[in-house]
């Protein structure tokens, strides 16, 4: 009997281990609330009307007003452009990742899936991220835009937090749905001849 004493002792150890790792810890950790980061966005355009050949500033301020998040994504769409040329210049950015210029017909994420489901972009976009996204983290992004054609110049802006756990994980939460199936705020400047 003494010969098997180590087996008895080890079995008790293993039993405790299995109860802890399969029975106690999983429900304990799964009962924790999932983080819910929440983005917020403000856009300022000093001039709503300019003459052709003039430039205007687009000042974007975004913030995570919720829990700790993994990624804070700002997307700026230019429905009148197929690609970003010298008419759009980035003046200032304090995001910790480099911005990306995305041309029309490029595969981009859709339906707030963080790139899991992709669709082709229908116009030029600028995407920029801050990783991770701490609570109250705030970001500025400033563009100088010199439109090449007269008419109404529209810009679509949205911000998304990952993990995307619900309605509050994107901003705006309503309005126009863009070709990516995500809500955007629409801003415009009248360009006069």
């Amino acid at each position, binding site marked *: 009997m003494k*010969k*098997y*004493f*180590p*087996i008895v*002792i*080890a079995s008790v*150890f*293993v039993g*405790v*281990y299995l109860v*802890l*790792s*399969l029975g106690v*810890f*999983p429900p304990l*950790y*799964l009962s*924790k609330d*999932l*983080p819910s980061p929440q983005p917020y966005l403000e856009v300022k355009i000093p001039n709503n009307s300019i003459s052709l050949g003039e430039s205007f500033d687009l000042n974007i301020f975004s913030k995570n007003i919720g829990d*700790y*998040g*993994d*990624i804070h994504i700002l997307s700026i769409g230019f429905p009148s452009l197929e690609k970003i040329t010298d008419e759009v210049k980035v003046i200032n950015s304090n995001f*910790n*990742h480099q911005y990306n210029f995305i041309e029309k017909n490029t595969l981009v994420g859709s339906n707030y*899936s*963080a790139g*899991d489901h992709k669709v082709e972009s229908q116009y030029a976009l600028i995407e920029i*991220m801050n*990783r*991770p996204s701490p609570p109250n983290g705030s970001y500025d992004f400033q563009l100088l835009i010199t439109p090449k054609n007269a008419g109404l110049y529209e810009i679509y802006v949205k911000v998304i937090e*990952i*993990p995307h756990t619900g309605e509050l994980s994107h901003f705006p939460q309503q309005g126009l749905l863009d070709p990516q199936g995500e809500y955007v705020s629409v801003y415009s400047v009248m360009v006069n001849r």
Partner: protein
Amino acid sequence: MIHMELESNLIKKSRLIFLSGNLMMSLGILFVTVGGSWDITNHVLNKPESFESVPHGVMYSGVALALIGTAISFLIWHKIEDKKSLKISLKLGVIGIAVLLSAGPIDFIWHSNFGLDGLLSPPHMSLIIGMILTSVGGMIGLVRYHVLSHSKISKFLIVIGLLPIWLASSGLISSLSLPFSNTGFFNFNPEPVSALIVATLCYPFLISLILISSSRLSKNKFGIITLIGGLFLAIYGTTAILPNFAMSDTILFYSTNLIPLVAADYIISKLNYKHAKYIGAGLLGSTFYMFYYPYIMYTYNEVLLGKLVSPSLIYSIYFELIVQVFFITLIPAVLAAFAGCYFSKHVCEKIEA
């Protein structure tokens, strides 16, 4: 008489210098694996990549240390008495460090042509294979010194020798099973079911091979399995769990992995039974999903849940899967661990010969 004494001292000194070279090789690769694991966590957490990051510094220091160690071993080798028995250690070290160093230019060429690479890529493969060869070379030198010296302290050389092999080989299995290799240019992500099979069989095999070998090489001394396993847990805990804000409290769960280590250690060292090592190996192998927390979850999630994972959700998806994965993988994992135990017998016999 004085001449003979001087010669004997010189031989002793040469062997000690060769040992130091082997020690530096193993410690160097240990640094590379620690830096590598930390770097992967930074990538998973999406922190911006920069050449001057701390994990990169740890990795490059490790490469430098391993290179110096290999150079020392190479230069002193012709002066040691038992050249023949240590030749394989030197050979593996030199080939390993050459392959490891070649990863640098390959990485540069790769980045210049294809941008960022994923976990599985030619430069990373070259790095990992170089690390495995160098660490095996270092380990053989350290173990053979232990066999010849029989000192009490030399038992710890087994731990220092085996730990980097364990970590570097884990890196190889992770590369072949984790879906971290889809980049703009190439999608080298392994096919999900094949990745699951690789993880289910290779991780338990490796755990068993390393831990049972450590026990065999130390003549079943109680504490060696716990020490090497505990160091493995400490490295993974500090480089893969604690840096992730969302799951730092799960370190409590991870630390319970010490229990099967102590239990297996106790069975193998105290149980007077011919197949005690197989019992210990089976027990250790069956816990691989817990040992490789958290990233192993990605492999099983691909097949079993298919959920979108972001860093702060890793722990939640992991715990959602844990019971299911444990029971699905129990039998194959135990069988793979038996194979690791059987293989370790032959490996240890060769090393000690």
